[in-house]
């Protein structure tokens, strides 16, 4: 493939993989048939490049997905590939303040990528809508919250790939055999002894935010989890741990697939360090994640980071049904488009819109830089979004439970506190 026999795009892809593999110090590549990537041109910065470049989407793919300044014709993908987030929700362009040209670019990208064989799941949670790796499956995924879920909860094997390596993997079906593809690197390094109950998705977000900051890019092992957490809780835990730190894999003793017990989680070795997580650590995490929140008047409530499950939408609907979102506040909820179809069918979309909120797909506020005009203070139930939104959009962010956030949407005031 490196000699160009499979065409110039595949040659560029292999060239990038070789440069990347050498940078890592990887000995070889491994076959993969499961790639998750953002390829679309609707994200900020890249949309301007696409608008200006005469060769359009092939130019965007060449530069941003293959690190090739020379524009090459992109062939159909070789590996099974799911698209992650886009930069906009075309069905809510007006609310998101998105220009008609950008919606056109989105549609153009949709037919371009669809024809290449990219599955347009358009979500940060591909594992919620059909891409569920099997234990031991070698993957090449982007999206830190999906990477950590794939490795830890499903037992799939992936490193946090980037746009260029995932682009190269799509065209070649190869990725460096390094990091979390190898058994030895998947074992736990740090023991986290939990001595309080961790209940809500917000609780799991706080735990993840604390642990991520403490262990950075290592592999924490949670002990003392008394109730088996569900998908939404682990989704929020992983998203938080991969934002405050760089955690790509964790174990929960007795719960996750490579940790029947602590001994298996650590591969028989001793932890490098042991951390404690009790009421004081939970409070510290809450203070850190709320470090930008000052004003009680909330302009914007954003839910669905990572994209909400149907269960989470149902939960919000029960809190919201028959009431009205405050006149000075907006409520936006993000979910994969496949889940929105179920929400439409269940009547949940109507409950949300009747209350004055919006159920959106494809993107989120931090990723697409989309917020209601004039937002100064946002409220979120995601530690990840609370971490990134103030840095990216210059707003204050309050973090609390889903119920705190719905309450803020109804009253226009933040009244969440650490329960």
């Amino acid at each position: 493939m490196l000699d160009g026999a499979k065409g110039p795009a595949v040659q560029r892809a292999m060239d990038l993989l070789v440069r990347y593999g050498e940078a890592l110090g990887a000995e070889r590549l491994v076959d993969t048939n499961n790639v998750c990537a953002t390829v679309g041109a609707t994200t900020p910065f890249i949309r301007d490049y696409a608008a200006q470049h005469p060769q359009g989407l092939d130019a965007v793919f060449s530069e941003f997905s293959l690190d090739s300044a020379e524009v090459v014709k992109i062939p159909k993908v070789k590996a099974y590939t799911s698209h992650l987030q886009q930069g906009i929700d075309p069905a809510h362009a007006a609310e998101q303040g998105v220009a008609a040209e950008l919606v056109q670019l989105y549609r153009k990208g949709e037919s371009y990528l669809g024809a290449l064989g990219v599955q347009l799941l358009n979500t940060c949670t591909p594992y919620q809508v059909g891409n569920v790796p099997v234990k031991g499956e070698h993957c090449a995924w982007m999206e830190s919250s999906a990477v950590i879920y794939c490795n830890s909860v499903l037992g799939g094997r992936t490193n946090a790939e980037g746009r260029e390596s995932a682009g190269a993997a799509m065209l070649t079906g190869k990725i460096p055999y390094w990091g979390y593809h190898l058994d030895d690197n998947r074992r736990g390094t740090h023991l986290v002894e939990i001595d309080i109950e961790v209940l809500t998705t917000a609780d799991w977000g706080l735990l993840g935010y604390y642990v991520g900051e403490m262990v950075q890019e290592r592999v924490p092992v949670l002990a003392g989890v008394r109730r088996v957490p569900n998908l939404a809780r682990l989704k929020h835990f992983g998203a938080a741990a991969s934002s405050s730190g760089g955690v790509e894999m964790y174990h929960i003793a007795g719960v996750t697939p490579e940790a029947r017990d602590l001994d298996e989680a650590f591969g028989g070795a001793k932890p490098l360090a042991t951390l404690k997580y009790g009421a004081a650590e939970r409070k510290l995490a809450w203070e850190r994640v709320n470090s930008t929140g000052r004003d009680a008047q909330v302009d914007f409530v954003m839910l669905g980071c990572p994209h909400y499950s149907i269960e989470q939408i149902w939960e919000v609907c029960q809190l919201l049904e028959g009431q009205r979102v405050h006149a000075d506040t907006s409520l936006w909820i993000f979910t994969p488009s496949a889940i929105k179809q179920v929400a439409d069918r269940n009547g949940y979309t109507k409950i949300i819109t009747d209350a004055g909120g919006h159920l959106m797909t494809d993107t989120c506020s931090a990723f697409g830089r989309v917020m209601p005009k004039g937002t100064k203070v946002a409220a979120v139930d995601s530690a990840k979004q609370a971490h990134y939104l103030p840095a990216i959009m210059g707003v204050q962010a309050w973090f609390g439970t889903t119920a705190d956030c719905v309450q803020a949407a109804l009253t226009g005031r933040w009244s969440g506190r650490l329960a």
Partner: protein
Amino acid sequence: MNKIVLHGRKVVGGSAEGEAMVTRDRISGWGGIDPRTGTIIETRHELRGQSFKGKVLVFPGAKGSSGWSSQFHVARLAGAAPAAMLFNEMTTKIALGAVVTHAPAMTDFDRDPLALIETGDWVRVDADRGVVEISKK
């Protein structure tokens, strides 16, 4: 003149020199930098508000989003990339990020660059030879 020499492994080849910008905080790419200016934007980062454009960036490693590489890629296209990168912890984020930044990058040093290099020092990086020369400010 007080000169220190470090030896390490090439991540991306080439040579460059510039003023050092040193941090003990790991750096987030997506949501951690403004790639148009090379400015650190992460809320609780010790370098918040400062730009690494044209500097020799010395840091422990990468954290956060998998958009790390694409943000440094955009920084290169915007002319706001660092002149060189020296770091301790290898991850896929930083390896790919360094590759697409097209600036010399090194890791696996014989001594800790975070302990020996201070912000403002003048640093020459020859990644092909695996040598870093530090002139103290």
